[in-house]
């Protein structure tokens, strides 16, 4: 990987400065059944195409942001700071 990523804070930077925390998933709103929990914790869609994912500017401003990246070409279509109201969250 050697593409550039547009940090919402710092502008375009080498991808090596960032850590990718994988695709954005949705944390269940209430107690899920075992299958629902397992899906949330362990399963990913792993799309061949545009994926919304979490990135962290680890060797930079240390901010978390969201990116839309085409997993086939590494083309980054958009980066943005998460909205406070998003309600979507991710698994660790």
């Amino acid at each position, binding site marked *: *990987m*050697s*593409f*550039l990523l547009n940090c919402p804070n710092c502008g375009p930077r*080498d*991808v090596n400065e960032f*850590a990718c*925390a994988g695709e954005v998933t949705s*944390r*269940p709103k209430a*107690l*899920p059944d*075992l299958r629902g*929990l397992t899906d*949330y*914790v*362990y399963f990913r869609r792993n799309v061949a195409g545009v994926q919304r994912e*979490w990135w*962290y500017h*680890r060797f930079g401003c*240390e*901010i*978390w*942001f969201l990116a839309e990246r085409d997993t086939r070409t*590494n083309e980054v279509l958009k980066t943005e*700071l*998460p*909205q*406070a*109201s*998003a309600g*979507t*969250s*991710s*698994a*660790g």
Partner: protein
Amino acid sequence: MRLPEQLNERIDRSRPVRFFFAGRVVEGFEGDTIGSALFASGQRVFSRSFKYHRRRGLLCCSGGCPNCMMRVDGVPNVRVCTEPVREGAHVHAQNVLGSLEHDLLAAVDHFGGPFTPVGFYYRTMIRPRSLWPLYERFLRNVAGLGRLDKHAGRTRRFDTEHRRTEVLVIGGGRSGREAARSAAAAGRQVVLVDERGAPADGAFEVLAPARAIGIYEGGLVPVDAGNVLYRFRAERIVVATGALEQPLLFPGNDLVGVHLPGAVRRLVDEWSIKPGERAVIVSADERGLAVADKLERAGTSVVERIDLRSAPPRQLAARGSRGRLRSVVVDGREIECDLLVMSGGRQPAYSLLAQAGARVEYDAERGIFVPSDLPSNVEAVGSAAGEQEPAAVPAATFEGAEGAGRCFVCVCEDVTEKDVKRAIAEGFDSIELGKRYTTVTMGPCQGRLCHVPSIRLFARENETDEKAIGTTTARPPWAPVSLGLLAGRGHEPTKRTSIHHRHEEAGATMMWTGFWRRAHSYEHAANEALNVHRGVGVIDVSTLGKLLVQGPDAARFLELLYPNRFGDMKVGRIRYGVLGTDAGRIMDDGTIARLGEDQYYVTTTSTGADTVIEWFEWWNAVWGLDVETVNLTGALAAVNVAGPRSRELLGRLAQIDTSNEGISYLDAKETYVAGVPCLILRIGFVGELGYELHFASPYGEYLWDALLEYGADLGIRPFGLEPQRILRLEKMHILVGQDTDSESNVLEAGMPWIAKLDKEDFVGKWALEHVQERGFREQLVGFEMTDGVVPAEGGQIVLGGRPAGRVTSSRLSPQLGRAIGMAWVRPELAHEGAEIDIKVNGGFARACVRLKPFFDPEGERLRS
């Protein structure tokens, strides 16, 4: 050997340069390369070939072919034809056993032929199996080129530099410079990279000698400039890499004395050297034939010119003796000569363009591969784009003659026409497979000389055309690059606390914990542990992660992150917390002190600090709560003063009442200690009365010294990480990552009180509920050996001959005089006094399960 002074020569005859080669002194001039100086001194053989150890000479003399690779001042595989002379340099031939003239390994050339076809090491040497180790030793000895200097890592330093420019021009020839000039004239910022050493230009920056080694994803162009690797990002990349002279395929085409036109041109023009006495020229283009004029001027008689465009011969072969060219046979006619200039036309150097995503197609009319469909940010100019003079399409190979040697397709890997034919006959008829099987194009020239000829040969043998065969995928590196340059400077990050030097002065044994350097022990771990039990000890715990969590939502934020409850905590109190994931896994632990209504001070483990901080920030980004986290890990130092006499010591230095009423167990108080503003946390990781002092790290040494000075009469001694590990084990305090792994949760780890499952939500709640529902699979317990032997950490616990658990920690406790430890065991064994067998040294040792801390089980000493 030098000609009289020429008009445009590059050498400065008033400045001689001397260097050493094969035990003799060679003299050249400033402006020479090591190769040209050697050639001028009469040297004609520059290397022995990769496999057959055949003599090889300056074939291309422009840094493309592998024939002149030598070891220069310890650096292997230096192409001496382009390496400038250096006073006093030590130059050695490589890939020889003996000398270039008498190489013992040349026997392979005479006898090895039938036994060493392509891929022979997979076939000939595979049986009998039992002999493989012997074969392997031999093969490893003769394989590869050059020998690495094992100390080179200490003598050379490589750096990486990130650079940006608007326009990056690769190649400093006519077209490249024109492109650079016009871009600069249009007001663009331009950098031109040239491997030959193009002169500086006022209008734009020139990096030379430097080589672009590839075009990677995102338009990244790494440029090798010797000791610096530039990682270029350019808005526009202009590729002006020119064209590559192609050799002809005929028997004897690797003899010393066979050159490409460029080699002859440079020898005569740049270094004023007469390349031979009698020359024959065989050329597919005007450029090759034009060398005749240069040769005549240098005093070489051109005895034959063969123009492949008008009268291509059927037969072309070179004969030689002792590896040197003696004559050329053309259609039955033998012509004596010592120089053969061959040219199969020029091929656009499209590799970088192909790497960038361009399509490469065969132009049958011109007989060359031409790039097209370039990505929008990449441009090709000049010969690289296919703009060049017309040339004949040479035959794939020429008919041989009696006494002529092998016909080489690839001089890097010694692949002959016969090898390629054989590979095709064996079924490797696609160029991609054939390439991998024969290794043609995979040598140091990276296909510069062999790519197109091998495609022509494949086309002929498969009875099709070059278009149908197509090219192989172009991959970086386009130019050879040293591994040292790719590795860059040796980065071994080290974190030291502000008290680090005091530990070294005290003679501590230091150890790594993550990137931190910490004191393992100062003299004797057991004694240091005992001193904490009996008097007072002090340990540097500055490595702990330290976070300030602040804001109206601080309590809510922590309650969502931790299984614990924090909203009900009084200001000035401390609680132990275990951080978990939504999988229920334990990821870290530490203490949380409430400093104010909206302010908490969180500590993490030393090695988990960075992960926890990222974790906090991430959830904060997800939830968007009104809370801020500040990382104070480096800003603050911390020491733990522990032991029954720690209160007395602190009483002398702290500005607060240090009685049990003044600051009781799990109290946090801000005050001055020895004049330094401190946050005191009364906690007890090591199991004795203790105070953790957190303060600004610049005061580290001062406060450390003050504690040792004022505690001297109390018997204070510093203790290291190892005694701390003994002490915490006596209390069954877990170490995350040591006693827990990726499956551990707080319930099975024996800390059910941590998880407040009645809270509406927290990270990991659902997983813990599931664990409770399914029942425990294993539990973390303490154990005590009955016979005092200390089992290995990771040791197996066996019950009735079946595995029943594993040891995670074990130590001999000097305080208790017993071997103790912690282990994961099956739930039916997790009761006080259960007997377990632990594998020790091939046998078994008996142990008893303990659920309560081995030392001070009721925590009276902690609270006293």
